[in-house]
Structures are given as structure tokens and as C-alpha cells.
């Protein structure tokens, strides 16, 4: 039998996973821009709030709620109804404000996810940085 020392020494290396290097570099890059990310997130959330308020104000002013309410009283699923519905949407809801709101909302969600991924990792580092007892 080979000596145990030799057998441990001769254990082969396992193949290094393809994407791991990139994953580490990306995580570090994200961490480097953490505070910038937080600043961008604050601005985008502010935008979501403002565009949401503007959208709400324009919908309320245009009387869209009453118009949609009376429209759905005569609900009937056919081509004319659907075409009238989109006409109503275009008339009463400012599509420009709606698209700004939706884009900002999606952007805020994405940046928030990136930011909370970093925060979650920070929590892990904090907990596992304590000295390990080898018992």
C-alpha cells in the first residue's frame, strides 16, 4: 500500500468551474459601487413617487374612474368592446406619464434587488467573521 501521506498528496485537483472567476469579479464590482447604487436607488424611488403622484392626479382630473365604471356596466367580450376599451384608455390615461411611471418602477425594483443582495451578503460576513472554535 502507498504511504497515506503520498496518497493524500496524489489526490487530483478538481476542475475549476467556468463561470466562477467572472462571478467573483462581478460581485466585487457591485460592492465597489454600493453607495453609488444606494444614491441611484434613492433618486429612482423619488422618481417613482413623483411620477405616481402625477399619474394619479391626471387620472383623477380626467374623470377616468367614473368613465371606466360606467363602461364596464355594459361588459360584453367582443372586438368592439375591446377596441372601445383601448380608446377609453388612450383618452383618459396619459400614456406618457404611465410609461414613465412603469419604467421607473421596474428600474427601482431591479436596483433594489441588487442592493439588497449586497446587504444580505454583508450580514453573512458579519455573522461568520467571528472566531471559529475548533472543538
Amino acid at each position: 500500500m502507498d504511504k497515506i501521506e503520498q496518497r493524500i498528496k496524489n489526490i487530483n485537483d478538481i476542475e475549476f468551474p467556468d463561470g466562477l472567476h467572472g462571478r467573483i469579479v462581478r460581485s466585487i464590482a457591485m460592492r465597489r459601487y454600493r453607495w453609488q447604487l444606494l444614491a441611484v436607488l434613492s433618486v429612482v424611488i423619488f422618481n417613482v413617487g413623483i411620477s405616481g403622484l402625477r399619474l394619479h392626479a391626471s387620472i383623477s382630473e380626467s374623470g377616468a374612474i367614473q368613465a371606466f365604471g360606467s363602461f364596464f356596466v355594459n361588459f360584453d367580450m367582443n372586438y368592439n368592446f375591446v377596441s372601445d376599451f383601448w380608446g377609453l384608455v388612450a383618452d383618459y390615461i396619459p400614456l406618457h406619464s404611465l410609461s414613465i411611471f412603469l419604467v421607473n418602477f421596474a428600474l427601482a425594483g431591479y436596483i433594489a434587488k441588487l442592493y439588497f443582495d449586497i446587504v444580505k451578503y454583508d450580514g453573512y460576513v458579519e455573522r461568520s467573521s467571528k472566531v471559529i472554535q475548533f472543538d
Partner: protein
Amino acid sequence: MDERELVIKLKAGDFEAFEELLLKYEKPIFNYAYRLTFKKADAEDLTQETFLRLYDKRKTLDPDKGAKNWLYTVATNIAFDLFRKRKRANELPIDDNEEFETIAVSSPYHNIERVKDIESALGKLKPKHRNALVLFYKEDFTYEEIGVFLEIPVNTVKTYIRRGKEALKELLLDYDTEKTNGQNRTKDKKHKRH
């Protein structure tokens, strides 16, 4: 550029210095992590967390000591943290029934069965014994360096290595006995058929 310079640059926040250290140590740390956990996914996570921590704690590095020992210490700590969590969740670090992700062996010196035996036996050791054996025989660290990684006295390192070797010998002997018995049973069956 030598490692001292790289560490000085990293401390100053140089990302290129970090990437150079990453390229130099990612493979050894990944393999070390695999020898500790015996799971590829765990080894990947452990490697990633080790290097993230290198970047986070770069200001605490000592250029004269380099990054190698620091990385092994941190990888060891993270692995033991993982073991503790699994122990609390009643999940063993190594699943006895799990297939080891052993790569194909090309050298004529090796033989797949023997490599699997030693890996399987290592996986059954206590983590502290396994760790000391891997660090000493596979990674070529000195007793003193291992003592620093594991935060234990040198004599305890020697004890871990000795006990680990004894346990490993017993396990390998068991495997050999099992194999011999298996071969004998097969021969007996063949004889009975004839």
C-alpha cells in the same frame, strides 16, 4: 510584481491588484475548499466568499505576510462555519451515500478506485482532522502555519495530524477488507455455478 507589492496596492483599493491575487489563488483555494466540503457547489460558494472577504477586509492585510495564509485562514473559517450550521440543522457535512465528484485520473501512478477510497475516507474524518491532514500533506503548509490558520497550538496540530492518519488508516483498511470479501464472494458464486 511580487505579492508584497500586490497587497500594498490592494490595500490602497487597486482593483487590478485584487484580480491578480484572484487569478493566482482562486484555483488553489477552490481545490482546498473542495477537499474540506467534498461538494462542488459548496466549494464554489466558499471560494467566492473568501475572495469577497479579501476585498472587504483588505485594509487589515499585512504586506509582509502576503495574502496566501490569510486566504487559507478565511477559507477554513468559512468552511467550519458551514459545518457548524449544518450540524445545528442535523445535516452532516458529507453525505455517506453521495457520489464524490472525482475527476478522471490520467496518471498511471493513480488508480480511480484508490483515489475514490482516499477521498471517501477523508470525507468521513472529523473536519478538524481532515483539515489538518489536507493542509499538511496536500497544501504543504508547516505545523506553525496550520496552527495559525486553525488558531490552535502547534502540538495540537501534530495531534490532529496523527489522529487523522490513524483514523484514515483504519478506514482504508476497512475498504480493503470489504473489497477482498466482495471479491471472495464473487469467486465463491462462480465456483458454485461450475
